[in-house]
């Protein structure tokens, strides 16, 4: 049962990662990336690493996501002012 959950989680991680790179729309890629970060937090929890889970959620998904979204916003505004 737990193995099934782990496998599912791992597969969704990989699928999200793949879509992040392959999806044609950049905004969607960024959202997928943040989702990926949250899934990573879950994975860390499964690996009995709550410290990393917390850090991943706050830094990996949160801060990195914010940085990326902010950059995306600026770049888009610059292209279409």
């Amino acid at each position, binding site marked *: 049962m*737990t*193995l099934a959950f*782990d*496998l599912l989680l*791992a*597969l969704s*991680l*990989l699928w999200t*990662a*793949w879509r*992040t*790179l392959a999806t044609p729309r*950049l905004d969607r*890629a*960024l959202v997928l*990336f943040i989702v*990926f970060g949250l899934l*990573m937090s879950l*994975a*860390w929890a*499964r*690996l*009995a*690493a709550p*410290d*990393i889970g917390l*850090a*991943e959620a706050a*830094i*990996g998904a949160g*801060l*990195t996501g914010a*940085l*990326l979204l902010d*950059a*995306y916003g*600026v*770049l888009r505004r*610059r292209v279409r002012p």
Partner: protein
Amino acid sequence: MSTGFVFALAGAVLFSLGVAGVVLIGHLLRRILAFNLMGSGAFLVLVGLAQRQDVADPVPQAMVLTGIVVAVAATALALALVRKLHALTGQLGLPGDVDE
């Protein structure tokens, strides 16, 4: 198969995917994403492989914490460079090899 192993394998795939992304993708924002995927892959291998008997090992966990902070630092720097490049050239890709 243990949880550790599952995620170690996933990490191996993620790493390869990330490297392939950095190599193949020209769009710089996406390259940064790919780099982050690559890093996450390495972290998963580090913890997952060490915990392949599913016993928590604080040493690789602490290393990964360190690694995550380094990754966010690198990401911020990369973004700063990309934004600067875009401001200067309007481009979101690197110019072709500048070999003379």
